């Protein structure tokens, strides 16, 4: 058991005493290898002897081989422990060991956990390339948006009902954090809640999306992660790495259409060329890390959700991409056609420039490099390349809703939970001339978005079923921006020139990462990062609890603010803090605790402790 995981109940410790003390049963580590070795030959992937299929969790339960939660009632256990050789599984083989049986028992007793999306059966889903315009189901109860029509039909089909709608204060908090990365000020909150206009949510959406600078400074983090910009990684490099911050910031301010944005990146100007140039490492490096191979990997992953890392070394074992595909992309950018290397060994074969989807068109190896890049940008953003729009709308859906329609977001060949929804959002994006703000608007305007969060997918079930949005932890940047705003402790100046910011407080994304931001998950961007860690680790909790950066921020913030308020003024201070941090007023009980903390009159010490306590509330750190 991990040193931090001690609050986990010593699950089934008695059964598993002989195995790994204290460690709960884990499907992937403990069960899957066992099923593979002892059961799979006869009960998976087309072989379903005795009508027992173990392909998926549902199939296993459907075969009535296991009763989740009750191993003693499960025929599977009966069969593997049978004393009758004719009955006992596996037949004509050694019986399972006691340890193996204990694993199976514990696994069944704990509810038959399964790895999400895992199936023994060969994948049957083939991700389409062309865009597709799905037919929209009829609207229910005034839920008329395209998203809601698709999602409602999906709920019907799964026998689910839509989650409850969120109230105005929850809405403004979530929307502000999602769209501009900032908490609303208490005055904005009050005004919004008091507003009687029936279309006030639409107005708020428009207002936030119209806040060009705040929008740009929030989404800068998302794009820096994706484009490996604002690199803070190792320096054993010999150039070839150029920041694109100026270009990126302006593109976000201007809401540059996404197809143009990508054309600027693939067929760049000197300002935007950093992305395709990659990093030139010093000394001898593996052929799969040459800058032209980085180009192949990066444009595939970021714009198409294709993992070309395996295929950069050898034909991929995990999907259909071949070494020639990776090198076909590499040949586009290479000054001279590169020699294909298999597992770092030269093959004698010279690569020819080729796009990953050759059905969209050819790239002429004989054309000059700039022309090849221009052509690649054209093919990437080709109207018939549906994968292009699907990939970005899926990323945006994941940011706003907590989980992708296709998951993980970098494996777009996986089956979406709703093909129609993905295709609808993708075609809408193309129809809007690739306006990303419109895509965001479409999603946040839906009832699906404006509903209460549901628990993250049940880890015990194999197939994901959409039930509603999933709460997300603030990113390091969102957390610090919130703390800066509330305590008045924003950094003095940005790390680079971001033009005239009208005296707005400096945002976390505009300064170099400090140890706290690092700890909370701001990456150094040596690799592309497309999702941040979802859970708070104990080392992070330690940094928040006794780390110097956090302590200094709340101390300084308290000194800025404490005015020896007493009585009503102290009450007002607490009330304001709750509205600023949580978008609600404190309950009487909370007020009592908070007042006890800040002291009367308010002391800097007390206020700093209250700041800390509020910032540590899960309610604060989650966007829900």
């Amino acid at each position: 058991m991990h040193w931090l995981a001690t609050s986990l109940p010593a699950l089934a410790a008695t059964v598993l005493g002989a195995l790994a003390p204290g460690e709960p049963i884990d499907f992937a580590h403990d069960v899957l290898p066992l099923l593979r070795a002892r059961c799979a030959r006869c009960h998976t992937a087309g072989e379903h002897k005795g009508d027992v299929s173990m392909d998926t969790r549902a199939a296993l339960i459907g075969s009535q081989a296991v009763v989740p939660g009750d191993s003693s009632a499960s025929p599977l256990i009966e069969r593997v422990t049978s004393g009758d050789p004719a009955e006992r599984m596996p037949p004509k083989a050694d019986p399972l060991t006691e340890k193996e049986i204990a694993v199976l028992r514990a696994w069944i007793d704990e509810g038959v956990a399964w790895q999400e999306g895992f199936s023994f059966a060969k994948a049957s889903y083939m991700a389409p390339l062309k865009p597709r315009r799905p037919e929209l189901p009829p609207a229910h109860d005034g839920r008329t948006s395209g998203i809601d029509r698709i999602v409602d039909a999906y709920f019907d089909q799964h026998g689910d009902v839509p989650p409850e709608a969120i109230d105005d204060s929850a809405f403004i908090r979530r929307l502000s954090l999602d769209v501009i990365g900032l908490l609303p000020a208490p005055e904005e909150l009050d005004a919004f809640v008091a507003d009687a206009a029936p279309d006030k949510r639409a107005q708020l959406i428009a207002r936030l999306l119209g806040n060009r600078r705040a929008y740009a400074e929030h989404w800068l983090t998302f794009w820096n992660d994706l484009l490996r910009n604002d690199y803070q990684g190792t320096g054993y490099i010999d150039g070839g790495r150029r920041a694109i911050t100026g270009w990126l910031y302006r593109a976000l301010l201007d809401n540059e259409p996404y197809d143009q944005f990508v054309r600027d990146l693939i067929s760049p100007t000197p300002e935007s060329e950093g992305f395709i140039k990659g990093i030139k490492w010093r000394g001898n490096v593996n052929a799969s890390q040459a800058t032209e191979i980085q180009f192949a990997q990066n444009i595939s992953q970021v714009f198409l959700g294709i993992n070309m890392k395996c295929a950069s070394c050898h034909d991929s074992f995990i999907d259909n991409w071949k070494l020639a595909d990776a090198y076909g992309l590499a040949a586009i950018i290479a000054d001279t056609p590169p020699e294909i290397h298999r597992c770092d060994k030269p093959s004698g074969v010279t690569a020819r420039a080729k796009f990953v989807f050759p059905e969209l068109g050819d790239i002429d190896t004989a054309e000059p490099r700039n022309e090849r890049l221009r052509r690649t940008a054209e093919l990437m953003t080709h109207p018939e390349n549906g994968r292009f729009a699907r990939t970005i709308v899926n990323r945006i859906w994941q940011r706003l809703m907590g989980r992708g329609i296709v998951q993980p977001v970098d494996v777009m060949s996986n089956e979406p939970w709703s093909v129609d929804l993905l295709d609808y959002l993708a075609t809408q994006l193309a129809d809007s001339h690739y306006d990303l703000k419109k895509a965001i608007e479409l999603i946040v305007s839906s009832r699906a978005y404006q509903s209460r969060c549901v628990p993250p997918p049940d880890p015990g079930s194999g197939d994901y079923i959409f039930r509603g949005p999933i709460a997300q932890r603030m990113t390091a940047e969102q957390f610090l921006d919130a703390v800066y705003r509330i305590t008045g402790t924003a950094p003095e100046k940005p790390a680079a020139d971001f033009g005239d910011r009208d005296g707005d407080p400096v945002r976390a994304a505009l300064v170099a990462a400090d140890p706290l931001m690092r700890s909370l998950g701001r990456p150094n961007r040596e690799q592309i990062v497309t999702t941040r860690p979802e859970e708070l680790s104990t080392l992070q909790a330690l940094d928040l609890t006794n780390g110097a950066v956090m302590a200094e921020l709340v101390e300084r913030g308290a000194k800025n603010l404490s005015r020896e308020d007493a009585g009503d003024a102290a009450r007002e201070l607490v009330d304001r803090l709750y509205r600023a941090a949580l978008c609600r007023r404190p309950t009487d009980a909370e007020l009592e605790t908070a007042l006890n903390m800040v002291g009367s009159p308010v002391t800097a010490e007390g206020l700093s402790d209250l700041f800390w306590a509020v910032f540590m509330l899960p309610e604060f750190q989650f966007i829900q």
Partner: protein
Amino acid sequence: MLYLDDASREPSRREFLKRLAAASAAAMAAAAPRLVSADDPGDGVEHPEPTADACILLWMAGGMAAPETFDPKRYAPFEVGLPANEIMSTFPAIDTAVDNIKIAQGLENIARVLDRGTLVRSHRLPDLGHILHSRHQYHWHTGYVPPQTVAAPHIGAWIARVLGPRNPAIPAFIDIGQRLDDVGEKEELKAFHTAGFLGAEYGPFLLPYPDQAIAAVRPPKGMTPERFQARERRYRELVQRSPLGESGSRYQQASMLRAMENAYRLLNSPERAAFDLSLEPKEHYEKYDTGRFGRGCLLARRLVEAGARFIEVTTEYVPFLHWDTHENGHTTAERMKQEIDRPIARLVLDLDERGLLDRTLVVVASEFSRDMMIEGIPGSAAVDQSRAKADFMQEMKHYGLHRHFTGSSSVVLFGGGMKRGALYGATAPERPCLVTENPVTVSDLHATLLTAMGVSPAMAFTVEKRPFYVTQDGKGRAIRELFA
């Protein structure tokens, strides 16, 4: 105990906790890492029976010259006009507690305890074209040559992930002595002081200053324990009193509160005392106190006694300082040996006297060795980085091993199931001092260390659908001859 633990609010707490446990386990699997083995990805992996429960890696950062320490060659004392190419070692050899082993002068204390360890002289590092400490350090600590397309975990993080803590109140992976901020090449250092794709939970608990280690497990600076406890109490009260908000995030809230509570528990556990060097009797403290590294060894001993799993203590990498001798090599090596000799020997003796050495593996290692003449290996394209080049000795700054040599390097292993008083591998007596028998790669050395700890060198986790092995390609082979 969870902060949400309130029966009136939680009708089915038991059920909830069960789900929480299952969720964490499954999240781990789903988030990528999945155990497979090199031989048969379908068949799981058989972990060896451990011979050690804890491991202390004593890191000689910056390239410790083997001929000046554990693999002495022909000694040539300084004299003006001495030709550089006649210099193999700048220290004479001395006897050790083992008959057939001599090491360099300046390591008299270690010499006396060498009968408790195994000396490996045939550790061979790759030539990476351009010798950079940071790339070799990354390679040594993760088993992978950077750059990599996924973030490779430090070996301590692997051990933390697979074995977990020995004592739940002591972090499983502790790193002592290395500052990661305000030093040169800090990003390079951060790149491998990480759990990489395994996740932040398994990353190093950093204690750059051993005598301030207690501060890392104490309330923030300037906050009295009373105030700290009051703050915590009020915080719990606020959590309890908050209307639970959206029910949808209950699991996530609980997971976050668990992390907060773990942190608080660490800051309040009795084991915290292990971090406090001021509690060590004065005469004992002084035995270790040769500097930051020596005090780090003392801290490591205290933490192992309290139940630490994996600890790295470093002489600290700072470009051109300490073992990174680009000039003045002799003088610097003399000082470095003064810093490491007593505490390493003392640590081995203390562990032995306490009956802990048999189950604690102590490893002394460095990213590569040094030579007077050769950068990399003979014939390497690597650029010579000596800052005190001279064909003939003119002044003391010329005298020393200033080139980065990757052809052979020394490693010492004490306890943890290793032979006592043994020697493994050999190097040529004359330049180039390449390995002449039993070469040991980083993969094989890691495999040995992991095997001693009870982790199969062939284990892997799946990341981005492909296996990432604890030793490169799962091919690391434990060196059986080193085990007792």
